[in-house]
């Protein structure tokens, strides 16, 4: 059998049935997906050591085949490439759990999920932010001045862009959102224009320079 050309769902089925060549192909095909996600997630905690990444990759594969591949048996792909997202999620969970364990040991059983806090902190834009009180006021003012006919989706896009600093490309990459990067940019530009009109040009500038492609 030509394992290389097997569709992901057929490969999963062959793995669940316990064929060694199927698992060889599974590892060859998906180890980069798992290792890549583990490495990027671990980097957020300042750990880029190959030893740790290898350990977590191994743990991910062991989790996949635990209980006679229960997670694979129960996985019901909704799209042809869903397995990629599924494995990335396995890798992310294992990495986050690893750092949760480490941080709990260091700091005792505190109330907060310090690993998750660290992950969130690492994702925040490096630029200087507004003081908390001023930020709350600005957020409220903007919210009240968004175009009244804005769809819930466009509102989300606007806040993901400004409040969380996501790029238009990153927003367009959210699965199921249904917009290209250009589409996202156009939503943001339209809404920013409206808000600027309502609040005055001196207060709010249009979103130049945060598009990933630099074409905004």
């Amino acid at each position, binding site marked *: 059998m030509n394992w290389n050309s097997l569709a992901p769902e057929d490969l999963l089925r062959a*793995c*669940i049935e316990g*064929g060694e060549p199927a698992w*060889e192909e599974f*590892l060859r095909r998906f*180890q*980069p997906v798992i*290792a*890549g996600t583990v490495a990027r*997630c671990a980097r*957020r905690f300042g750990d*880029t050591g190959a030893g740790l*990444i*290898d350990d977590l990759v*191994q743990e991910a*594969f062991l*989790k*996949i*085949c635990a*209980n*006679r591949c229960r997670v694979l048996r129960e*996985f019901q792909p909704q*799209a042809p490439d869903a397995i990629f*997202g*599924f494995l*990335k*999620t396995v890798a*992310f969970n294992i990495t986050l759990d690893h750092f949760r364990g480490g941080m709990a040991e260091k700091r005792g*059983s505190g109330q*907060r*999920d310090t690993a*998750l*806090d660290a992950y969130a*902190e690492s*994702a*925040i834009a490096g*630029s*200087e*932010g*507004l003081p*908390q009180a*001023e*930020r709350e006021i*600005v*957020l409220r003012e903007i919210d009240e001045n968004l175009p009244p006919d804005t769809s819930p989706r466009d509102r*989300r896009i606007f*806040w*993901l862009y*400004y*409040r*969380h*600093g996501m790029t238009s490309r*990153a927003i367009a*990459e*959210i*699965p*199921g959102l249904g917009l290209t990067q250009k589409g996202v940019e156009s939503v943001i530009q339209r809404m920013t224009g409206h808000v600027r009109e309502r609040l005055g040009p001196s207060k709010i*500038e249009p*979103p*130049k320079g945060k598009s990933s492609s630099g074409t905004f």
Partner: protein
Amino acid sequence: MVSMMDSERDPLERLAGSPRTGPGPGCPSPEELASVAAGLASAERRDSLLEHASRCDSCGAVLRGLIEDFSEQPDPQTLQSLRTSGPAWQHEMARCMTKASRPKQPVPIRSWLARVAAVVIALGGGWIAWITWFASNPEHLLAEAYTRQRPFEYRVPGAAYAPVRQERGALGSSFTKPRALLEAEDEIAGALEKDPDSAKALELRARAEMIEHDPERAIETVKHALERKPDDPGLQADLGMAYALRAQSRPDRAVDYAYAIDNLEKSRRIKPNSPETVFNLALVYEQMNSVDDAIREWDEYLKLDRSGPWHDEAQRRLTELESKKNSAGKP
């Protein structure tokens, strides 16, 4: 590009750089946010999670990190440096995974030497068996699953402390469930296959249902178990917790708090020193805004549990209630 001066003047551009508060009790788990980034959430759930994340500082930042981490291509140099990228490791791992994925076959013992070895292993490995049993005991697994994601405020017997992580609808697909929960469900399902009326298995199934935010079903399951063991204090306490959870999830079912108290009190009459029962009772009174009763129960709890994180949480709740009571008494 926006110049530094522009950026300093423009508050909109500076919203994203502000410091973040941690997740709140109603925030989804990171595993759920990951399911959005991975395209695994249903359209309805995805929209609801995106709505939350777009307005929540903590979840928005986590989602941003996830989208970045899931969409970037792996760095070829990093991959090359990994042992797990090599064919030798992958070959060995494939063998392990093949073994693990096949149903276990009974191994025939052919020689007397093998029989002796089997006896020695059986005797010498008794403690390993005990540890294995402990690790696969569904009650311990459920307690572990609860601690991993403490999905509600009420205490599950035997579970270690954890802060509340989420309050509703967070354990959708089997994938977002903690592994311990999946394993526990496997064991419980096996036990119920053998004896569908086993009170113990039904009790554990009800706990799993509560962890999965299904108090409605949990109530039915515990009631079924109580038919077999009507005076079991553990079952009474579980039924009380299930009622409390249903009351919390359905505003039209506030009456369930009364049932919760009734069942928790029944449990306490049979087993007076169960810290979990008293903890949950105090919480139910809190939910009912019955401040004096809640203060009395927290006091009672602190006598049963003298130290540790559960004690600290009880102490904190007691202090808050006392200050609430004092401020309400002021003119």
